[in-house]
């Protein structure tokens, strides 16, 4: 069996990179004494997959990982033991046991919801949201390894709203086929609002969704 685990990456440790987070989880599993599965080979390691890596600097409220197990364990026992082996900054919220052949969450991923807190000096950004979203197309410059590319991100923004004076909430495409990152959205929004120096922001990933915006862990 494997466990679909929902966990939180606390803002305090938001700068931990993906590989470091993976190693931290592997070590936590070792500490937990749970019957986890090791890879074969000379350097055996624990097999964990994450639905989607978090960008460095971003906390996550509702992150998802899959952990294959070598023996049956109840969901509640799994949760208790793993949480006992984790620091408070990494906290598991739920665990769901599924069959090994259950489709990988990574493949079902469709979108993610974020909250973006903007530093007080950048509050003007919020005023530009309505006209920004009223545009037919939203062209943004995406930097890739091979260079820069101008793309239309409008179809990748499923929702963008102002929730409090300096806070945005948005749902953006996040799938194997198409992705729009918060940074790209913010760059485009700044350009639209005519703000040259991007204000300091703190983005948090709140939730991940599959098709039809069903929470990913329920799929």
């Amino acid at each position, binding site marked *: 069996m494997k466990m679909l685990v929902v966990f939180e990456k606390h803002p305090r*440790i938001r700068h*931990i990179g993906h590989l*470091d987070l993976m190693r*931290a989880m592997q070590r936590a*599993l070792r*500490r937990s004494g749970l019957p986890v599965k090791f890879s074969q080979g000379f350097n055996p390691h624990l097999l964990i997959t994450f639905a989607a890596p978090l960008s460095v600097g971003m906390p996550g409220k509702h992150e998802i990982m899959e952990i294959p197990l070598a023996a049956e364990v109840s969901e509640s026992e799994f949760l208790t033991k793993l949480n006992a082996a984790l*620091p*408070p900054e990494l906290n598991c919220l739920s665990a769901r046991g599924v069959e090994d052949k259950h489709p990988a969450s990574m493949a079902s991923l469709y979108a993610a919801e974020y909250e973006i807190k903007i530093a007080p000096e950048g509050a003007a950004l919020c005023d530009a949201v309505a006209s920004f979203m009223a545009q037919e197309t939203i062209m943004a410059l995406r930097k890739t390894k091979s260079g820069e590319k101008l793309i239309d991100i409008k179809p990748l923004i499923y929702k963008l709203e102002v929730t409090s004076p300096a806070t945005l909430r948005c749902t953006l495409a996040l799938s194997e086929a198409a992705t729009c990152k918060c940074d790209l959205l913010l760059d485009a929004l700044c350009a639209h609002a005519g703000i040259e120096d991007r204000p*300091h922001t*703190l983005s948090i990933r709140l939730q991940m969704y599959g098709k039809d915006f069903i929470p990913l862990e329920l799929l």
Partner: protein
Amino acid sequence: MKEFSESKLEKILDTALKPARYTGGEMNAVIKPFDSADVTFAFCFPDAYEVGMSHLGIKILYHIINKQPWALCERVYTPWPDMADALRRENLPLFSIESRTPVRRFDILGFTLQYEMCYTNILEVLDLSDIPLRSCDRTEEDPIIMAGGPCAYNPEPLAPFIDVFQIGDGEEMMLEAIECVRKCKAEKASRLETLRALAKIEGIYVPAFYEATYNEDGTLKAFTPIDNAASPIVRKRIVRDLDKADYPDSFIVPYTEAIQDRSVLEIMRGCTKGCRFCQAGMLYRPVRERSLETLLKQADNLVNSTGYEEISLSSLSSGDYSHLSELCCALTERYADKKVSLSLPSMRLDSVVKQSLEEMQKVRKAGLTLAPEAGTQRLRDVINKGVTEEDLVRAVTDAFQSGWSTVKLYFMIGLPTETDADLEGIGHVAKQVMNCYFTVPKSQRARGLRVTASASTFVPKAFTPFQWQGQDPLDTIREKQHKLKDILYAVKGVNFNWHDPELSMLEACFARGDRRLADVLLAAWKNGCRMDGWSEFTNFEGWTKAFEDCGVDPAFYANRERGENELLPWDFIDAGVTRAFLWREWQRAQKAEVTPDCRKGCQGCGLQRFEGVCRK
């Protein structure tokens, strides 16, 4: 006064290099309410987080302090220069990792001194914390600045900056020190009264209570206590029974990879080989072993609490541990299921036993590290490195037969009495190692032979038989490096590494410096020197200018040979080994006379004077 601001910090973290160095939240970090502790201790390793997190001594003391319900210990490291500059720009004070409390609010700020080239980082940390750099300028509001570790055995270059030095093993002394501060705090004692109370603890040295005077030639004339609380001789502390000494049952597990990111078992402390260049070998005497039983228990604790994939054994000479094979077997067997591997670092080549090599190989094949230190038998006799060429040949042949193919060889240049023949000898040793590989049949040996020879510059250290010897001047070192490069170039297939001799020269100054070097240190830091141990921040001009501006000649400290009767700045410390023993060893060295390992018979080094610590 600078004020801490969470939002300003979060902002600068977003642009910092490796922000995880400053954010904590690691497994097993101890979180206690700051304001309810009687004594608060900020423990600083004066270097980058990933270096400091690798250090065993801090882990032990962090555990011991936090074990007391009334005390709290949190960590501090030297911010990388980009972060230090950002803190200054934003006017933020340096803060502790665990609770983000400004360092200045702690009762005590303690530094561990592992190498001289971190001294500018101490000033950097004090400055970033808004603490006056000099003891004499500190007020009742400022923390008490403590320091310990191997470099505390010659504390003098730091004397004006540190309030209290701890000399020797810290486990018991640290507890006595924080208990003393707790008591003084409860009694509302003044800073001066607290320092006096601390000075009465064995092993503690309060530099402000002593005065140094100098002869006309610049040498030390007298070093005398000027306060009744200070004793003329400060005797190092020794933990007698390591089985009874506290050892952490968990290590903090960093998120970002530390240099040493594994469970560590300290199997023994001290060394009896008597290598004459080795300061640790003299300072950590006598040898004390941990029992197999204690070690297995500690290993269980660490494996279960850290989830580390690897255990390593730590000591100056692991090959000499009485139960090494048993320990290796037991550990390998015990954790096979958990896929925890075992690695033995720095093996002394004369004690590499084939059996334990094979035992280890089952789990992990790290590179083999050997330290012949010198290229000829004559010079190895001078430094009392009890290793022969046959030992070396046997060790590497065994290793190659057991599947090793990477060998690192460590040498020193500039050792006392060294000649060109000794440099040639290094080439000869490297060649021998290569030959050993090719004599092992192809079917038996692993592919991809890699031999690396590293040559560091010899630095004479306090409390070694070479404490009287001058270091080779820079030009001589450079010349020798070039010769050696040519010699090793001729041995095809050997990689050669060497270090900037400038850094070794600075190290030599501070390793045997006196109080007058403190001004140079301060000037160098003001010239922008910091993180001196990192090649990307090398700033030798800053140092040269500092020496010039202070009118101090580095050669006086680094290159000058000291006489038999010269009073040395560290003579007031009783480090266990006596000056008479060291002098005797220095004389024997110059005649290339070896002194056997004292396991085979006491050499009267001085430790026998300490009641019941040495088997003698």
